[in-house]
């Protein structure tokens, strides 16, 4: 079993935001690299100072973290810093054919900026990621199922991701939820391991999110906010139950959630990467056709 083959990188580049307690920039960069996209980690202050230009990139990622220690509400203070200093550049970026991805703290930032759901491209706060019902940070693995077929979910039957957040409890007003559903903006939902609905039940739905929502897109589909962390389990050995799956595979009893056709996934051998990599291939695939 070998570490995943490196794809030939596409020419488009990603910008990964950092600073003030964002902390998942390096594994996000690694996941994108493995999927075939080069990226640069840029401190928000270097964007504000104009040392780097958002317009040089096609994908903007707000990675996971604890920006400002979740003080004044998770993602809120970092969103304020973006809104108070980078708003015009960001609007211009959104007007072009670009993607924005927010994972965990990044989703919380997107929600506070109003980049999702952004009905009619109006950027107002419509949703909230509230404190978990348990009142504490929850770290565990969850199973996600796509709720829609789009460029983010292509070829994905399920992904199995770690979560680690104190505020991931998706909530919004009934009329907002109605519009989100009508426009097919729910991207991923928390499910049980057999892919049946979690129906709010802990630990499958880890935080109490409305309708088991784990991630939504903007109305135009170009912005995705996602609470769980696919980038933190890129490899087969990053999944929580891999030792069991390995034994089953070795004995020909596989129930391993690996996608056939992935590198290294031949009978009798172990997959080198986890099924979560498909998500990043999809992100990269939006810009360049790749196999």
């Amino acid at each position, binding site marked *: 079993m070998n570490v995943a083959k490196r794809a030939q990188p596409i020419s488009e580049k990603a910008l990964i935001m950092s600073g003030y307690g964002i902390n998942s920039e390096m594994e996000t960069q690694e996941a994108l690299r493995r999927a075939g996209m080069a990226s640069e980690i840029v401190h928000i202050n270097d964007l504000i100072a104009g040392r780097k230009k958002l317009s040089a990139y096609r994908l903007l990622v707000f990675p996971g973290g604890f920006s400002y220690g979740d003080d004044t509400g998770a993602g809120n203070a970092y969103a304020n810093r973006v809104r108070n200093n980078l708003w015009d550049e960001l609007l211009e970026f959104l007007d072009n054919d670009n993607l924005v991805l927010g994972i965990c703290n990044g989703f919380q930032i997107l929600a506070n900026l109003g980049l999702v759901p952004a009905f009619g491209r109006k950027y107002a*706060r419509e949703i909230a990621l509230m404190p978990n019902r348990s009142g504490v940070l929850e*770290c565990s693995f969850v199973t996600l199922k796509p709720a829609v077929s789009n460029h983010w979910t292509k070829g994905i039957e399920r992904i199995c991701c770690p979560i680690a957040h104190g505020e991931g409890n998706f909530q919004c007003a009934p009329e907002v939820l109605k519009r989100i559903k009508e426009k097919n903006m729910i991207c991923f939902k928390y499910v049980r391991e057999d892919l049946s609905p979690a129906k709010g039940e802990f630990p499958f739905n880890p935080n109490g999110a409305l309708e088991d929502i784990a991630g939504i897109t903007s109305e135009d589909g170009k912005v995705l906010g996602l609470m769980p962390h696919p980038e933190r389990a890129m490899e087969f050995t990053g999944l929580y139950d891999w*030792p069991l799956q390995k034994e089953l595979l070795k004995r020909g009893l596989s129930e391993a959630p690996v996608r056939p056709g992935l590198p290294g996934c031949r009978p009798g051998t172990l997959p080198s990467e986890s099924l979560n990599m498909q998500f990043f291939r999809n992100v990269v695939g939006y810009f360049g056709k790749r196999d």
Partner: protein
Amino acid sequence: MASAHRLEVQYKQDPRLKSRTARIRSLGFPSVQEVQLIDVYTISTAAKDFSPAELQKIGEQLVNPVVQGFTVDAATKGEFDFAIEVGFLPGVTDNAGSTARQTIEDFFKMRFREGEGVHTSQLYFVKAKLSATEMQKLASKLANPLVNRVHIKTRQEYGAKGMDVVVLRVHLDELLEAEPVNLDIEDAELAKLGKEGILDKKIGTRRGPLALDLPQLHAIREHFKKRGRKPTDLELESLAQTWSEHCKHTIFASAMDDDVPQGLYKTYIQGATNCIRKQRGKDDLCVSVFSDNSGAIVFDSENLVTHKVETHNSPSALDPFGGALTGIVGVNRDTIGFGLGAKPCINYYGYCVADPETEPKLYRGKGRANPLLPPRQILDGVVRGVAVGGNCSGIPTPQGWCYFDARYVGKPLIFVGTVGVMPLEKNGRKLYLKKAQPGDLIVMVGGRVGKDGIHGATFSSEALDSGSPVTAVQIGDPITQKKLSDAIVKEARDLGLYTSMTDNGAGGLSCSVAEMAKESNGCHVQLDKVPLKYPGMAPWEIWVSESQERMTLAVPPAKLDEFMELMGRREVEATVIGKFTNSGKCVAEWKCKAVMDVDLKFLHDGLPKKHLKSSYSQKKFPEPSQACPSDLSPTMLDMLKRKNICSKEFITTQYDYVVQGGHVLGPLQGKGQVQSIASLTKVVLSSRKGVGLSQGTYPLYSDIDTYCMAAAGIDTAIRGLIAIGVPLDKIALLDNFCWCSSDEPERLGQLKRAAKACYDYATAFGTPFISGKDSMFNDFVGFDEKDKRVKISVPPTLLISSIGIHPEAEKAVSMDAKCEGDLIYVVGETREELGGSEYFAYLGHVGNRVPKLDAAGAKARYAKVEKAIAGELVASAYPVNYGGLGVALAKVAVAGRLGMSLTIPQAMRPDYYLFSESQGRFVVTICPANGEKFEKILGADAKLLGTVGGQNFTVKADKTLVNLPMAQLEEAYKSPFRGY
């Protein structure tokens, strides 16, 4: 015009309402119906005032309007019986307040000035019919008087006006000069000076312990007599810090008896490492040991990994949250401060506390003054402190443990550790080497200096009593440190902008600068350049303050501009506070006047040598008289429910153990999610290698024999890593001695035996010590309810932590049973060794036959296990530890959610066989197809006990001893801490 405004933020519907209310009920207030929480921001300005429209804008920045509402200078309405507001005391770190301040500054493009700012508090609306006393009691569970202020109002008092606006200001009344201290006084008076500190003439009280004894004070007096002057208060404080037990480890360094003239550390700890390194020659695993902030071993041809484990016991006893938080972010700095900066990549914890279901009535002062915090509050606080520290810093916490004994009631032991990763070389520089050069500038980076943690180093060298200083309490600010860490480790280091660096921990600048001054042979500090949190601090306080989140760097003048510019862009405060020299002196000036001028040689080596005397006698305890129960099912359930054995999952799941993306074997394993004792993490994502961590500690064995206690700790720490597949020659150890009453010969005798065992077993296994720390006075001296003097000492506790490099992460083995039909073996010999075991403790006894280990036999056995794992023959492996074989088997079964049918030999009493804690053993499960190969490798070391499968966990000898449904076993294992 000074003005203050109060913003109150409330969720329209709070999702935490239920869990919060349930928690408060569980703290002893079952009649509480509901507890609402309101976040309060108090904004105080001196020069300008915010207009109502501006305050509205500020409110909008601080809330999410979708789910929250806020009021400005108006009381939040609600249905409740009384309101409790908990805020900070002046000068205490308020992280949320600081974030709010930055947000407001960024929005209005303005700066708050000195004396202005934002502070936060929490307002609880409690619905419950409680008496005034009960109300006070509830409030005391929400706050700590050392860091918090509390205001309570009944519904009536609250009225329409609500709570009062409280503005916090730090008022200092210090002597703003350095002054000479007269040491030409009677010994009794001198001893008092050492114990209670310098008398502050201006305020008439003593400043807190110097922890200098008479011989040390005499040496200082002689030194200054020769120089023809009196020492300044700053010089005396500085010497006290540098010579403290905490910094110089005098007990480990001093000669002991006639047979250890070099001291315990050099003879047994460093001695073991030197011996192993010499034997290994070219295969030496060590890169840097004992000399830097952390120890380092080789990871691969390009990288090294560091490890360091610290304790933060005294501060955590006073303020568990702040103490533990400060501890974990502090040990992170031991990683950042290793060499030219390693990246923290794994956090680690260990807590020794009293049973959280007990509430002992003990007091630090007479007349029931200054009560000890209840164990539950200590546990909750430290768990949360390490959670906030690790989670906010983006460092995964996959590894840790928690141990309970009544004797930790006065001094809990809080262990915190951090692993770091660093390239061996960058741009031709070896990153693990550092040397400040004469002429380099001394730059302090990170947070500002306040009164926090003054006398931390000297105070942790003393036993906790009523005179313990309150300024020792500090609260960390992980985000400030994260900014600092990122700026140094991810940017400045690789640009080669500095030549040396160390952490500001114990002793603050006085220790960090003086330590680095050894590299260049001198320093000259300008204390008035040090940026302060608030004005009015005395020079000695600035010099020894332990305010957090600071590093000291040596920056060459040619690199200064580039360095300062980078720090500016990252919003990391950096200040030049002096220069490294080659004068051979440590000089500090205040307002252009030298207030410290001491030879480095005296500062670092002037400490008078001690010769310690120890004594030793082994105690005899009665053996238990209970007969073996004929049905061991209830016993098995009771054992699984024991606090040292059952699941402490509630801690694990609050800690982010997946950040940085390297999770391989986490803290909870298998479908049944059982806590293992070892974890595996990838710290270099492109590598197949991983870092394994484990540990061993057996405080109860110390009651019988500290030699066996240490041996068991070493063996378990090693065995934990062997079980996941780390080869023995890739394992290194760390020692943390937490002793008690180390001025008593009998305790020193116990210490000597433990240290001797460290040498014997480390050299036998070939596992070097790379770093260690000791804390020698973990005693509580106080009073009970009747004012009777009480002394409670922790059991001598040695934590052995292990770190090892796994060659191929995908060959790692987890603990859970995998498939029906798999064969179950015990590897290693079970003897009747229950002295100090969990089973004897359950029977109310200590016993005498403590587990003894034959290291040579164990080493040979581990080589066989290593071979079987490398050949991928092992489906699961788990090292037998607390509770013995019976508990280990049950945990493996629960982890796999699979039953077991087991038959045990009849030679030994069945309960003793099941619960003996003989060391050197594993439980392994093997696919039947691999059984023969496995047995061929292991030979007589493996004994087949049964097979995996079925709904029940059954154990037979001549008759059925245990027969339990798996669900019942899992429930017993998981129930004790449910609701925590």
